[in-house]
């Protein structure tokens, strides 16, 4: 206890506030957009990066003075923001509610990749002459840029607050946020309002990119996602659409991270951030600054699934497809077989996610966690001596149990909150794997995982491995299709369409959500476990957030809830980039554009959602 008290708490507080003011600056823009568009703008991190690079171009390449750079960065950011609104948000006005969120992920990928292609992947310095004085506080010091970041955040929040609550245009913004149809009838040009909000928020995000770049004297095209996640946690703490609250949320997050590091060490920092996110969602979803106890209507309740009639593939076509698939190894191209094995492993995970996200309607951005649990369970058990075949089954069962238990608290969340909550759970699982060194070997990963074999029969070689995975995909696809046409499938869909109505009819929604997670966890766990035996080496990063996003893309491409669609989409998503390998550098761009076009023009997916 004395040791804890003796820590330099004052210095940790200063560190936390300096870091927190960066998060706050990000959060203000996110909160503003959330307030109007009911949307977490996943492209906000990319806008931050674009701002940093516009800043570099102005301040370093062109040698402009700082004030001119800031101005141009703000203008550039505003232009990008307006563009995001026109391209990705406005056309999706009448579409399923998940559509704009996914569109911003697509835009983010495109912006990041564009920056990457123009400026290269290397981090570069951003030397901007700042006054040399530093203010000594405690045993450390803060410089002019630290203070600028903090002050910019506070001023931006104050000005925006004044604008929102004391000007006519601000009233229009709030009216649009509450009910855009009513606002339209009152003569508010809601498109102009939305565009203005995106422009203002993005200008702020871009300035944040410049300031933070100056602060670290380094800019890097790969920071977008991390900084955007922190901004998101900050607005969840401060209240999603609460602009002044975002400042508080950012500072609190900075302090939590700093104190967490003080007590437990640096490798726990993100574990704290995401645990706080989860707890906030469950306990105080309106943010800690919300007045009273009443629960505001959660944003985006109702289903995310675009209504459509799924395309029924005739039986003979499916049988033919399986036969053709089974013949792939005879083409004599092991590379193609391997790519197809990868694709089918994605398909297996996709079948699992389409049940959760499509049939039950819980959009999950943390599905990779289930793969990771299955992979680690099977790897550790088989290294300890269990035969691989048994390891696979036990791992799948473990994933079903652990996955359901982990997701259980998220069952009461709806809409956007499910997406954020599952994202947090996914990150938490990865961070626990990283920090639970005695079991998981921490950052060293698990090496020497036995190759795939089932009771002495080799399934490691390319062709048998392929057939094994193909067999599993067929079995689980049939099983799931059967379940979906039973009363269970109807119950799941009923919960998705209207949980309250379903409960009124005596359906215990938690029980049925649990069943869905159990089944999906088993399938995903199996996919993860097979992957582990195939790789022979895994670590905490093998199944990461990108895997989750890719799986979600697959499931949407196939049509939410559509089993055959998920398989088809997995083959397309995992296979097509291999065909276009020559264009390797543009691959992420390709994903981004594909996601955007898909959501815009065929939101129900290739085979229709069901």
């Amino acid at each position: 206890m004395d040791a804890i008290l003796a820590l330099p708490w004052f210095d940790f507080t200063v560190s936390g506030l300096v870091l927190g003011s960066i998060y706050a600056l990000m959060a203000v823009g996110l909160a503003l957009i959330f307030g109007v568009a009911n949307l977490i703008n996943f492209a906000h991190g990319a806008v931050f990066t674009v701002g940093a690079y516009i800043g570099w171009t102005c301040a370093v390449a062109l040698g402009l003075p700082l004030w001119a750079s800031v101005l141009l960065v703000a203008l550039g950011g505003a232009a990008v923001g307006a563009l995001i609104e026109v391209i990705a948000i406005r056309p999706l006005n009448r579409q399923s509610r998940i559509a704009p969120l996914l569109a911003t992920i697509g835009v983010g990928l495109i912006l990041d990749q564009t920056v990457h292609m123009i400026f290269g992947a290397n981090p570069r310095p951003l030397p901007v002459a700042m006054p040399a004085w530093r203010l000594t506080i405690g045993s450390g010091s803060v410089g002019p840029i630290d203070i600028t970041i903090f002050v910019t955040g506070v001023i931006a929040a104050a000005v925006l607050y004044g604008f929102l609550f004391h000007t006519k245009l601000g009233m229009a913004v709030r009216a649009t946020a509450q009910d855009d149809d009513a606002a339209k009838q009152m003569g508010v040009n809601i498109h102009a309002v939305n565009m203005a909000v995106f422009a203002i928020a993005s200008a702020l995000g871009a300035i944040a990119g410049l300031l933070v770049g100056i602060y670290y004297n380094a800019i890097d095209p790969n920071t977008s996602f991390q900084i955007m996640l922190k901004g998101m946690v900050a607005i969840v703490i401060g209240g999603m659409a609460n602009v002044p609250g975002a400042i508080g949320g950012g500072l609190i997050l900075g302090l939590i991270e700093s104190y967490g590091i003080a007590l437990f060490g640096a490798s726990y920092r993100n574990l704290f951030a995401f645990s706080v996110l989860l707890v906030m969602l469950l306990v105080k979803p309106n943010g800690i600054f919300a007045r009273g106890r009443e629960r505001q209507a959660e944003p985006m309740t109702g289903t995310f699934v675009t209504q459509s009639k799924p395309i029924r593939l005739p039986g003979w076509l499916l049988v033919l497809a399986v036969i053709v698939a089974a013949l792939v190894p005879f083409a004599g191209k092991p590379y193609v077989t391997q790519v197809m094995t990868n694709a089918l492993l994605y398909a297996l995970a996709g079948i699992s996610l389409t049940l959760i996200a499509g049939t039950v309607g819980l959009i999950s951005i943390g599905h990779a966690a289930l793969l990771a649990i299955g992979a680690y369970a099977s790897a550790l058990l088989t290294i300890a001596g269990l035969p691989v075949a048994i390891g696979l089954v036990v791992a799948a069962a473990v994933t079903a149990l652990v996955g359901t238990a982990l997701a259980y608290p998220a069952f009461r969340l709806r809409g956007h909150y499910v997406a954020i909550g599952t994202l947090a759970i996914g990150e938490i699982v990865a961070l626990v794997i990283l920090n639970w060194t005695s079991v998981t070997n921490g950052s060293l990963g698990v090496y020497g995982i036995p190759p795939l074999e089932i009771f002495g029969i080799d399934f490691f070689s390319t062709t048998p491995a392929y057939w094994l995975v193909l067999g599993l995909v067929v079995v689980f696809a049939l099983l799931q299709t059967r379940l979906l046409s039973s009363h269970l499938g109807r119950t799941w869909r009923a919960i998705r369409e209207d949980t309250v109505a379903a409960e009124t009819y005596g359906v215990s929604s938690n029980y049925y959500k649990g069943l869905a997670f159990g089944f999906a966890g088993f399938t995903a766990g199996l996919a993860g476990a097979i992957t582990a035996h195939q790789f022979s080496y895994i670590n905490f990063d093998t199944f990461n957030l990108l895997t989750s996003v890719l799986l979600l893309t697959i499931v949407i491409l196939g049509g939410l809830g559509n089993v055959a669609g998920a398989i088809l989409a997995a083959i397309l998503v995992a296979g097509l980039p291999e065909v276009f390998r020559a264009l390797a550098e543009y691959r992420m761009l390709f994903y981004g554009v594909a996601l955007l076009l898909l959501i815009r023009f065929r939101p129900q997916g290739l085979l229709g959602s069901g």
Partner: protein
Amino acid sequence: MTFPVLTRRALAGLALAGALAAALPAGAETSGDSVTIGVSGPLTGPQAQYGELWKQGFDLALKKINADGGIDGQPLQYVFEDSQNDPRQSIAIAQKFISDPSIVVEVGDFSSTASMAASPLYQRGGLVQFGFTNSHPDFTKTGDYMWSSSISQSQEQQVMADYAVNRLGLKKIAVLHLNTDWGTTAKNIFIEEAKQRGAEVVATEGYLPDEKDFRATLTRIKAANPDGILLESYYSDGALVVRQIRELGIDLPIVAVGSVYSPDFLKIAGDAANGVHTVAYFTPVSPRPEVQTFIKDFTTAYSKEPNNFNAMAYDTMNILAAVMRQYGTTREDIKSGLGQISGISSVLFPKVSFDPEIRRVMGLEPTDLIVENGQFQLYQ
């Protein structure tokens, strides 16, 4: 005249093609089927910058090798497949290389995860996997087709401990390390080596590669009251750490592992870099002619100074070319050749040879450096 560097990524190669066509003397023309090396590495994704650095080193080396007649008259070339540093893709690439008879040896991948996932396939397929950034202690353990010219961690950490404890006299050291397989292994070995030399490690903190802010971590380190800080970092994160150490007013000696040795480290860390100790296996202050020629050629070709990754990539092509010239160009020739080759000189190693037992490079020669006036200087 045959253009020697016909990679599939022709776009990037085109610019170089012009330069090469002009530079190649007519007499050293290569002809016949080319000898192809398969490279699996990141060209996109978060680690893409390393793929870029590799290509610069590879292209420069090939230009020279092919100007000298390639491999007995056959031009040497490489095919770069983008794995995004992702194991799913590196295993698919492995299948592609193994089944393509024109690939005689494979180079890469970048990280342990991506490389070691593919190792069992290369081992079964009988194709040498040559990893030059794979310092993971288990990398070469999959089988006798895994070879590495990456400095092994145990050698490197002995060097670090010698520098920090014996040379600088540090007794209470705080270690800040990347929380990756590389950084964690380095930290663990360093703690042992420091202990053997009579020093104590009073604090260890791991951070993830995408972290940018270290103030709280450093406050914690400061509270442990060390007399020096050791960084197991790469150059970009290492530079951020060093800057923030000085901004927090921590005035302790800093020793950083050799991977910070990069011009970008100096640029990003700025004035804060002054006084940082590090070691280099590749350094322009080295008088050896191999090093000086490399730096001159590299600076001419790319108008910037090379870093460690450029040098390692450059060496890799040269080592493999030397093996092929001496022992032949079949997959088996290269495997047995790597075990026999000795004494060739490269940028990083004055005399390259491999320990046939652990299949790792031998012959490390570190140079102790310190940053002064924004430049790496010999530490006297």
